[in-house]
């Protein structure tokens, strides 16, 4: 059986079914089945049991396989909790949004899969633009003023950003002028093979445009605002998807261009740009962590922080690159836990403002504890995975002590700012009027959180050899010898 076909055609079929069948339960079951099959296929590809043959348009190299697994993993949990999420009574207006919800999720899966396995940068561009289109209706789920503004800003900013990325890809075409690649298709494999022949000036220009353009989607400062608005106003499962996998898809675009640049003289230039972007993102997260009054925005800023850290790790190279790849995995899983539980808090308190939330641990013990552990995981408390990946990034940064000092400074204060907010939500005593005691049952979101947290600890304590060999393979592809 052709796995490539399964990975791409199945979501398309599911889009059709979800669009025409209006029974929500049926939509859910179909989407969940597709998510499970997708997860199994991604795992088969990930572990190297069976890898589909490469062709001009698609390839399954180590990088694609890792990101593909992250995508289907995050997607599976999001779909799993979606049904119970949709059944929550919150606002009347969202009834309309619910009809399109699963259809859009499937479009999201299809577009992201296509983007991740594409070898042709044109295909990548089309697919990643489609991912933006698929999340836009999801951001507008609540149909209020804030979500409308968030959707408009996200759609506009990211579309302009992606247009810039396209200019970057066209510069790549220009860089091939006068070489064997002239007039050839924009294939990552062939450009990597003849990278040393490419014109370095156009390569640099290309990287700047691609990096700045896709930054709007990755959430690298200073292009992050659209992303923050979107993730904080989208419903929690969609926010988890965006933070968990969409940012990774955009990052892959930058990595592809970087991969072409690695063997050339321009590699250092790209690294410097990525280090600057990363450190600036950490700075922005550090500043805003003390300013945010909205807990979902806080988690969104935490995404800016972690994607900044990942970019920094990639830019630093060496062991930090390995750390960055692992960090991508761990960050995605942790963000799912945080956003799902933030969604539970939002449902109970009907507000995203920190000031209107109190005493979560007592009112909603399950959610409270999982949120707390999710917080521990994201601030890199051992034994959660992020601790180990951050350690590797720091180890790589040892050669640049000033940079390391700055990173540690920012991370420490981000930790202080974030914990102030989180503990305030969890422990503050209720004001004069009594909180309604909410008796909370163990729900499917809690099951997802529990599994993911256990997985994060397990991955941190004993790294599966498959993951490790794959990450080492990616590092080799990027010219890093360990």
């Amino acid at each position, binding site marked *: 059986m052709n796995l490539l076909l399964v990975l791409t055609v199945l979501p398309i079929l599911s889009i059709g079914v979800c669009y025409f069948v209006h029974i929500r339960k049926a939509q859910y079951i179909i989407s969940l089945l597709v998510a499970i099959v997708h997860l199994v296929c991604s795992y088969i590809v990930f572990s190297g049991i069976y890898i589909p043959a490469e062709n001009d348009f698609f390839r399954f190299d180590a990088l694609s396989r890792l990101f593909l697994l992250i995508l289907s993993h995050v997607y599976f949990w999001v779909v799993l909790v979606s049904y119970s999420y949709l059944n929550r009574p919150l606002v009347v207006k969202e009834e309309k949004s619910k009809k399109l919800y699963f259809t859009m999720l499937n479009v999201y899966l299809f577009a992201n899969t296509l983007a991740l396995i594409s070898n*042709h940068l*044109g*295909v990548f*561009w*089309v697919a990643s*633009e*489609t991912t*933006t*289109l698929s999340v*836009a*209706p999801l951001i*507008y789920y609540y149909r209020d*003023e*804030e979500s*409308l*503004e*968030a*959707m*408009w*800003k996200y*759609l*506009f900013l990211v*579309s*302009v950003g992606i*247009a810039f990325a*396209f*200019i970057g*890809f*066209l510069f790549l*075409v*220009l860089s091939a*002028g*006068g070489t064997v690649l002239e*007039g*050839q*298709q*924009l294939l990552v494999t062939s450009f990597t093979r003849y990278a040393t022949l490419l*014109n370095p*000036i*156009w390569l640099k220009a290309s990287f700047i445009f691609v990096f700045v353009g896709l930054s709007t989607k990755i959430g690298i400062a200073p292009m992050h605002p659209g992303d923050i*608005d979107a993730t*904080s*106003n989208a419903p929690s499962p969609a926010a988890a998807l965006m933070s968990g996998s969409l940012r990774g898809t955009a990052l892959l675009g930058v990595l592809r261009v970087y991969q072409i640049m690695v063997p050339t003289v321009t590699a250092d230039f790209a690294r410097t740009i990525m280090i600057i972007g990363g450190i600036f993102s950490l700075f922005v997260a550090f500043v*805003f962590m003390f*300013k*945010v*009054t*909205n807990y979902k*925005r806080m988690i969104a800023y935490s995404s800016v922080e972690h994607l900044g850290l990942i970019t920094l790790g990639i830019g630093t190279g060496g062991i930090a690159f390995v750390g960055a790849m692992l960090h991508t995995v761990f960050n995605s899983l942790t963000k799912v836990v945080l956003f799902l539980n933030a969604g539970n808090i939002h449902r109970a308190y009907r507000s995203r403002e920190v000031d209107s939330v109190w005493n979560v641990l007592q009112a909603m013990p399950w959610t409270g504890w999982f949120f707390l552990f999710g917080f521990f995981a994201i601030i890199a408390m051992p034994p959660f995975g992020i601790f180990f990946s951050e350690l590797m990034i720091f180890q790589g940064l040892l050669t640049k002590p000033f940079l390391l000092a700055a990173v540690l400074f920012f991370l420490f204060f981000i930790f202080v700012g974030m914990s102030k907010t989180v503990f305030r939500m969890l422990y503050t005593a209720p004001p004069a009027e009594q909180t309604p005691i909410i008796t909370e049952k163990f729900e499917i979101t809690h099951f997802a959180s529990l599994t993911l947290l256990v997985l994060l600890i397990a991955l941190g304590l004993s790294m599966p050899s498959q993951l490790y060999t794959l990450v080492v393979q990616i590092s080799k592809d990027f010219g890093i010898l360990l």
Partner: protein
Amino acid sequence: MENVLSILFCLTLLYLVITSRLKTYVAILRTQGVLLSAIMIFPFMRHLSVHILIIPLMSLIVKAIIIPRFINKIIIDLDVKRIVEPSIQPFNFLLLSVASMSTIFVAAHVLSGYTPIEPIPFASAFSAIVTGIFLIIFRKKLIVHVVGFLILENGIFLFGTSVAAEMPTIVELGAMLDVFVVVFLMGIAINKISSTFAKQDVTVLGKLKD
């Protein structure tokens, strides 16, 4: 011939800068759509085939007919005030655009010495990209932002033709479809914005911040 069409394309940009009527914006979009399709057909005039004609025809339909119609419909449906209030003096805007365009043309001329680019289409494309961004920055109406985005996309399209980027037909069609859907979604969003807020300006979108 390609150069002549590119220069015409550039002139539409200058007209875009000084006009303040929404109708003219739509007309300019239409003209640019026709010009772009013509630029794409010219290199293949000698040996035309159905396969080569697919993309120019599609771009003619999408860029010169469907999208301008859609924008016109939004303007009429929402009864948007037909005159755009700029946040910059028209003359200053013209000065700024001409200055940046001339810089781009000079830069393109210099660059063409080093790399195999066609300076005039290349510079026209970049002028469109810059003008699109200026339009987004200096105008307040959301519908004009959409026009700015489309001008930017037109510029990229021209750029793609000028560097002779080899894209498979399916990718080009996908890209065109994507742009169309983006504009479509933006149109829906503007519709919603006008029914939620009193104005369709960027000024109403200031709720989300820290």
